[in-house]
């Protein structure tokens, strides 16, 4: 049997199609997205796309899963515990922002789709992004609570609001890295985050 491309193991083929989908979405957005366009990008016929994913909706959902999985994998496990013990909150914030921005730099496709959702992003996918964002904010809020406890909470500071602000700034820094990677190297941003964090007097509680 002759085929245009060499036969690949099913999971390799699947991965190849998901990568192609993320590339097309990052580049052209969702409008005009068809199985045909994705197949072309992946260098295959439409047949394997239908065989593996059934329809465009299912393929897009799988690509969104893939993007989320990659994004999650970039978050170090150490940050996923509720209590970071005796670590210094300012060190944690500086290190976390550097890790995040390096992840963005290393995998711009994944992060572009998440941080700069294209015009025409289907409602279900938008809702997923919003849900993910809420989860990230909850997670950051736990860290903020821990951090405020360590430094002595300023009167009136709301951990949820601070968490939203940290996430919003992080997202914007990520967008800056995506748009102008040479202008915003990780060192420049990490240095600025360090400088800002250093402004906050971090008196530890007795």
């Amino acid at each position: 049997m002759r085929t245009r491309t060499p036969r690949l193991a099913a999971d390799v083929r699947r991965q190849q199609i998901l990568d192609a989908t993320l590339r097309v979405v990052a580049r052209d957005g969702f409008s005009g997205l068809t199985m045909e366009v994705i197949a072309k990008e992946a260098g295959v016929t439409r047949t394997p796309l239908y065989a593996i994913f059934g329809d465009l909706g299912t393929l897009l959902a799988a690509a969104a899963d893939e993007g989320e999985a990659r994004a999650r994998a970039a978050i170090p496990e150490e940050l996923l515990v509720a209590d970071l013990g005796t670590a210094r909150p300012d060190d944690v914030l500086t290190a976390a922002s550097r890790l995040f921005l390096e992840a963005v730099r290393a995998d711009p496709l994944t992060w572009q789709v998440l941080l700069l959702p294209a015009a025409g992003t289907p409602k279900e996918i938008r809702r997923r992004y919003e849900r993910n964002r809420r989860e990230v904010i909850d997670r950051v809020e736990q860290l903020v609570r821990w951090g405020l406890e360590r430094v002595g909470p300023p009167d009136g500071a709301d951990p949820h609001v601070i968490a939203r602000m940290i996430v919003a700034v992080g997202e914007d820094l990520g967008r800056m890295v995506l748009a102008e990677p040479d202008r915003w190297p990780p060192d420049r941003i990490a240095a600025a985050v360090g400088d800002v964090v250093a402004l906050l007097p971090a008196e530890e509680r007795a």
Partner: protein
Amino acid sequence: MSPRGVASAPRMPMEERRRQLLDITLRLVVEEGFGAVQAQRIASEAGITKPIVYRAYPSLAALQIAMLRREQRRVDGVLAKVVPADAGDLSPRDLLLQSLGGVLDAAAKRPLTWRLALHPPEGTPAIVRKIIDRRRQALLDRTRGLVQWGLPKLGGGQAIDDELMARVLLALAIEHVQIVLDDPQTDRDALLRSTEAILDRLRWT
């Protein structure tokens, strides 16, 4: 189809009619995108006939442009006030809090205007996006000027990257507005208290 036949729509002065049509267009665009701006839809939401729509605006494009201009003017008016070219006698702390408060009040008063500004809806013409980008850059430049003025008043602030700081402040302001848009019941003063608490922890000189 004489306009007089529509009992529910008494004659309106043209200025008032235009305002009504702009309001409807704004809501449709924010809630459903530019594709929802259809003459029949607008006419029925206004309780009038299509010819009356076209008497106020010669085309749907003209109506959309007029709406975008009005909203842009509203946003610009607020931003000119809350991001002044010159801080005057205010301290950086007070200016920042006053600016955030001003933009939050504006967003609470006209949520649709600010939703449009923050999230250009589906189908926003490329030329409009370009204008938005240019205005955003101008706002960023003005913010940066204020950051350059404010940072030296902060113990340890001189060395801070002012270009990055300006971006950070805009991101913070936008997120403040987003909180109010997400939940109109948000207590503005309570929201500002977190920022205030952090600002008061800094060593101002």
